[in-house]
């Protein structure tokens, strides 16, 4: 199997995203003799969970855990004669429901496919607090990526703060690699959520993985402070210290509990946000998830989106973790094979059945977990009036509140007035926070924020990369009018 090469002009199946979902789809498809092309913006296939090393070698499992090895296994199962994995390749637009636009090495191209599987995954969700724009403050994923891909620590004295089980792999990996973890802060006070899962016998693998992390943490001498969160990052030019405080179950700060911890690195992690931009450009319908307070891509029982021939797998369908993503890759690939008129081989049928069980158990567990770690509205008291919310355009909360009040919580109006969410990242970072801050001013308390309009290119590109698609009469890119 070749990577980093330019993709062909057409293929049977195009997979966007080379994480657990996209790779497992490609493995099944190439095994069935169908030509498949996988595109990924990263330098190496693997996505988040299987994140591979970019170096000559990889860190040992004693530091990074079993995920890289599992990723290498899966990549090895993809049949070279039927699959191309093009890395360093960003999908930035769509021409029609069967043709997408990408850029690689500074040059754009198009690729058409009989069917598309969207496996674009997720990135981290962030909550703005004073000082969070200081160098030295990063997402936990940034530190994990730096360690797994390059064997580099983000700093020497590290504080980790946020909520959810992702805090555990990150802290064990960093500590095993030699970082000093000055504090690990979990916002939630609920230690016993795993015990309230229904049908616990369905989740044996998850419990085993969790117990593994707890055992490693004990060996590394790591302690998690429950009901604790960062309230401020302190420093002049870069981070010097982190102020943390205790929080009650409603996510209100408990007065008199603040303490300051010297640190050069603060890592935050508040769950994940799906990458739905390409799905939006393709015109796929979304669904609102009230627990995650986010729009995910809607799919039917076959994992087909509302667009015929466009399927999905993994985190863009709902945050579910690596097992669900891998299982959905298999399910989507099996559906695509049938869509293209192939009969499933007996082995593929078996794989599909096993994947279907993994998926339903995994989604059930994830639902319970995400509910247990759901953020309460009070958490946004962390964001003070002069705290920058939109990092790209340096928009403070005060301006967002002002316009949200004036426009009765109309998301689009607030964005246009403040430019929050209109900068280089196109709202991927601040979108969640802006939506949550603005909706407080809506008359209907349960109003659902409108999803962002997806624009081409989905990430900033050089002019020469988009030039062939520019439409002078529009003063921009030719519009695709497929958004619902």
């Amino acid at each position, binding site marked *: 199997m070749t990577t980093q090469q330019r993709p062909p002009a057409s293929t049977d199946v195009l997979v966007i995203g080379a994480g657990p979902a996209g790779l497992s789809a490609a493995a099944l498809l190439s095994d069935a003799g169908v030509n498949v092309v996988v595109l990924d913006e990263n*330098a190496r296939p693997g996505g988040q969970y299987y994140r591979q090393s970019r170096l000559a070698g990889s*860190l040992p499992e004693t530091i990074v855990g079993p995920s890289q090895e599992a990723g290498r296994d899966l990549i090895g199962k993809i049949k070279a004669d039927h699959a191309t994995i093009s890395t360093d390749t960003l999908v930035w637009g769509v021409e029609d429901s069967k043709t997408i636009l990408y850029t690689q090495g500074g040059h754009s191209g198009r690729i058409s496919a009989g069917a598309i599987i969207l496996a674009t995954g997720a990135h981290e969700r962030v909550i703005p607090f004073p000082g969070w724009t200081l160098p*030295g403050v990063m997402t936990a*994923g940034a530190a994990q990526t730096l360690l797994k891909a390059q064997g*580099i620590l983000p700093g020497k004295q590290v504080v980790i703060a946020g909520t959810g089980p992702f805090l555990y792999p990150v802290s064990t990996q960093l500590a095993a690699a030699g970082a000093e973890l000055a504090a690990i802060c979990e916002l939630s006070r609920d230690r016993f959520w795993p015990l309230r899962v229904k049908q616990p016998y369905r989740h044996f693998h998850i419990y085993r993985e969790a117990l593994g992390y707890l055992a490693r943490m004990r060996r590394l001498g790591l302690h998690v402070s429950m009901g604790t969160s960062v309230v401020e990052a302190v420093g002049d030019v870069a981070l010097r210290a982190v102020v943390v405080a205790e929080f009650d179950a409603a996510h209100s700060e408990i007065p008199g509990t603040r303490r300051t911890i010297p640190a050069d690195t603060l890592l935050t992690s508040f769950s994940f946000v799906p990458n739905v931009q390409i799905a939006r450009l393709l015109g796929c319908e979304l669904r609102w998830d009230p627990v995650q307070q986010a729009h995910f891509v809607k799919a039917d029982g076959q994992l087909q989106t509302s667009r015929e021939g466009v399927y999905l797998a993994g985190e863009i369908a709902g945050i579910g973790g690596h097992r669900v993503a891998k299982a959905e890759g298999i399910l989507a690939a099996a559906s695509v094979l049938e869509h293209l008129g192939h009969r499933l081989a007996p082995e593929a049928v078996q794989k599909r059945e096993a994947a279907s069980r993994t998926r339903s158990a995994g989604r059930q567990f994830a639902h319970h977990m995400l509910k247990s770690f759901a953020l309460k509205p009070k958490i946004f008291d962390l964001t003070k009036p002069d705290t920058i919310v939109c990092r*790209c355009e340096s928009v403070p909360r005060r301006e967002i509140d002002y316009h949200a009040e004036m426009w009765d919580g109309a998301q689009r109006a607030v964005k246009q007035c403040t430019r929050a969410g209109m900068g*280089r*990242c196109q709202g991927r970072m601040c979108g969640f926070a802006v939506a949550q801050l603005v909706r407080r001013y809506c008359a209907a308390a349960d109003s659902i924020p409108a999803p962002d309009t997806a624009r081409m290119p989905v990430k*900033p590109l050089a002019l020469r990369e988009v030039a062939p698609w520019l439409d002078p009469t529009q003063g921009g890119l030719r519009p695709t009018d497929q958004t619902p």
Partner: protein
Amino acid sequence: MIDLRVAPVKRGQPFDISVNGMPVRAYPGETVAGVLLAAGMNVFRKTRETGRERGQFCGMGVCYDCLVDVDGQRSQRACMTACKPGMTIEVPALSKDRAE
């Protein structure tokens, strides 16, 4: 010299890149952000709006906070750019009076 690289991994033959005119050691496969962070340099640029410092934030190509100049091309994501021998990097925060 600060070096935040973790020991037990094969890295291949190191080479130098130029960071605002200074030679800085890099290993094959490392990103510009990786090389800067490994050397303890986490301040990359200042914002145009507020003049405040920024560095790597998302580490995976999403936030566009890690912008530096690469071989004369402005505003490239340090976290997504692989180092090559002889590459010239301008870290805006190290040049006077530059905001991005």
